[in-house]
């Protein structure tokens, strides 16, 4: 026993040395050569982190006085979130809104983003054109870049992609089915598929209904109506256009593959996406990243990705596709804000655009579709073939305790599918959330 205790005492004395020599210093301003250290934190998504390393290297080559310290993580929120709490802010953060952890939303609500408006007028490095003129029109007109309903841009648009319905084009060819262009044709196809033991729909998680719902609101009520919804206007959800959209989602729910809900969470959503590859379900709402996400998954014979905008309400009405784009921003408390803005402007150079595009990450740059190939060409040409783009998202609000529009509007879809809630209950809950969030709108 004595030896026992002695051993533990010895352990305690020696291990702190061992353990603490592992802590690393990472709060440095300049490196040993006097270069400014620019901390760039990016989400490592399906595009991989290699492209960021290449762009960082290119930037360093063009700016010899700056050294880039790149953090690329799949769980970026966990990594930088806790660092920011400790006062250690990255200079540039590439992290979109709409993520589960909602870090970017929190930054917006807390007014913790730096104003990036002057980037737009900056000349792109080595080129004779301003950032504003290089960007595709419309991408800096929404709450996704201008969260406070004023003229200031707080987030710059980065990789974009159309969202819509993904399906197995090979299966449609085999079965000699035509791809539905209206919702009525969609429901007819649902009957046919059911007869073959296939479900019409699945979805990765209920959160994926955001892009579907946004496009659907445009289809039923038009773009102005959609914008009213995004600004929490009074009474929008009692409107018949809103009801029509909710009813269509409920109809989708009734055609949804039965195991979907069980896997519709962050740990198992790939099993739902697998249903498309296995021909167990025909359509799912998603974005272009799904192709990379499922690249290694096994698939049925003759599988080929197909992609379309939402079907139209009538044969003569418009079809819409939500355009998702990721944002890049600078924390208000960053140490090197000017260098950070300069770095962001650099991301729109032809050199950087090309590096990103090689990994499949497409920025909203004029003429970008010309350098695309393969499946991406199909995806990004969706707007050339008649679908109208929908951009933006809900306006920023102060945090409202216990109220979350995304939970209410999208999360409830799980309950509609399983029949635990009715559309009336759903509509009422949305209306309530709408009312309490309107009061909290950022002025």
């Amino acid at each position, binding site marked *: 026993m004595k030896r026992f205790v002695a051993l533990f005492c010895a352990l305690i004395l020696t291990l702190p040395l061992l353990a603490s020599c592992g802590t690393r210093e990472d709060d440095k301003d300049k490196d040993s050569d006097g270069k400014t250290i620019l901390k760039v934190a990016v989400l490592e998504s399906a595009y991989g982190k290699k492209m960021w390393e290449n762009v960082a290297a290119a930037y360093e080559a063009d700016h010899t006085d700056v050294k880039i310290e790149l953090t690329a993580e799949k769980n970026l929120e966990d990594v930088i*979130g806790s660092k*920011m*709490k400790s006062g250690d802010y990255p200079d540039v953060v590439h992290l979109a809104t709409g993520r*589960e*952890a*909602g870090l970017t*939303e*929190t*930054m917006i*609500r*807390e*007014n*913790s983003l730096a104003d990036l408006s002057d980037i737009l007028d900056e000349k792109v490095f080595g080129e004779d054109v301003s950032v504003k003129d290089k960007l595709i029109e419309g991408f800096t007109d929404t709450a996704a870049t201008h969260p406070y309903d004023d003229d200031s841009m707080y987030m710059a648009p980065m990789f974009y992609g159309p969202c819509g319905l993904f399906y197995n084009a090979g299966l449609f060819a085999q079965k000699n089915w035509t791809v539905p262009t209206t919702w009525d044709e969609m429901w007819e196809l649902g009957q046919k598929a059911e007869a073959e033991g296939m479900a019409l729909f699945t979805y990765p998680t*209920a959160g994926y209904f955001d892009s579907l719902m946004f496009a659907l609101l445009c289809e039923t009520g038009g773009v102005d109506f959609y914008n009213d919804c995004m600004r929490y206007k009074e009474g929008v959800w009692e409107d018949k256009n809103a009801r029509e959209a909710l009813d269509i989602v409920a109809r989708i729910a009734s055609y949804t593959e*039965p*195991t*979907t*809900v*069980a*896997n*519709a*969470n*962050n*740990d*198992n959503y790939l*099993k739902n996406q697998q249903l498309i590859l296995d021909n167990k379900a025909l359509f799912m709402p998603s974005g272009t990243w799904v192709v990379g996400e499922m690249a290694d998954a096994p698939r049925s014979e003759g599988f080929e990705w197909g992609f379309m905008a939402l079907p139209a309400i009538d044969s003569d009405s418009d079809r819409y596709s939500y355009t998702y784009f990721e944002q890049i921003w600078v924390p208000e408390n960053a140490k090197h804000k000017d260098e950070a803005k300069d770095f962001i402007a650099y991301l729109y150079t032809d050199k950087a655009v090309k590096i990103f595009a090689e990994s499949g990450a497409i920025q909203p740059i004029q003429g970008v579709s010309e350098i695309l190939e393969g499946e991406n060409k199909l995806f990004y040409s969706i707007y050339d073939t008649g679908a109208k783009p929908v951009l933006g998202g809900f306006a920023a609000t102060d*945090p*409202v*305790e*216990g*109220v*979350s529009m995304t*939970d209410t509007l999208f*999360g*409830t*879809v*799980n*309950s509609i599918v*399983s029949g*635990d*809630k009715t559309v009336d209950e759903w509509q009422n809950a949305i209306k309530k959330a709408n009312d309490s969030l309107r009061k909290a709108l950022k002025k």
Partner: protein
Amino acid sequence: MTEFMRKHKGRRAFLSVCTIPALILFSVFMLYPTLNIFIISMYKWGGYSQHREFVGLDNFVKLFSDAKFWQSFQNTVLLIVIVTIVTMAMALLTAAVLTREKLRFKGFFRVVFYIPNILSAVVIAAIFSAVYDPSRGLLNTLLSFFTGGSAGQVLWLGDQKVVIYSIAIAMIWQAVGYYMVMYTASMSSVPESMYEAASLEGAGRVRQFFSITIPLIWTNIRTTLTFFIISSINISFLLVRAMTSGGPDGSTEVFLSYMYKQAYTNSSYGYGMAIGVLVFLFSFALSGIINLVTRRDSVDL
């Protein structure tokens, strides 16, 4: 006199040396953070900025009209009730059987039943995800083997009426062995002569169980019950977080998972801490109630 003083002083020094380190660690890493929760619960604060606004009891008032909070409250209580009753009943019965009956492989059963308790919650969640998977899960493929076909698939984690029980099953699976071993230990100290006397009077197994075994280990049951409930609140969170993230549509949201959701995802850190305060008070009150309800005249050997 001086001798006494010296000794007395030595005693004080000894007591201080023994207790102060524990007191310091406890104060710094448990007491202070707990107090902090009570303080932050009275602020409106997103968690990142320097801006905090004192709102008094506002967060608590909001909690009472927050339907999602009540849902998580209901789920937590439901889990505590079901899991406690089933776990305790199963643990007591298996313990009684393993101590009272002459069985083969007793040691084997005891060893196996205890295994879930040594696994990390992350591991348990992963195991049950594999068990509950709707189409390729161990459970549904086993069921379809008996029913002969894929008919009657149960969506263990997808059906909102089922999912909370699926979580409960995982919790029971995790806990039974531990309490069984604990009760086996205390039951084996009940003298054999009492059972012999009862047998002579014609009392059967069931009578013996209720009139000898249970009363004699009652104090043990009481203590374990309190611990069990406190740990249930925690385990339910660990499992929910790794298995369903509170879904589908909040149907497995429990106290602590909702607290995390509000504090992090909804930028309402102060509000989240208010939930933390309620959980603390709730577990305190609950163990008080249990203490009261289970009070019996203790039977001494």
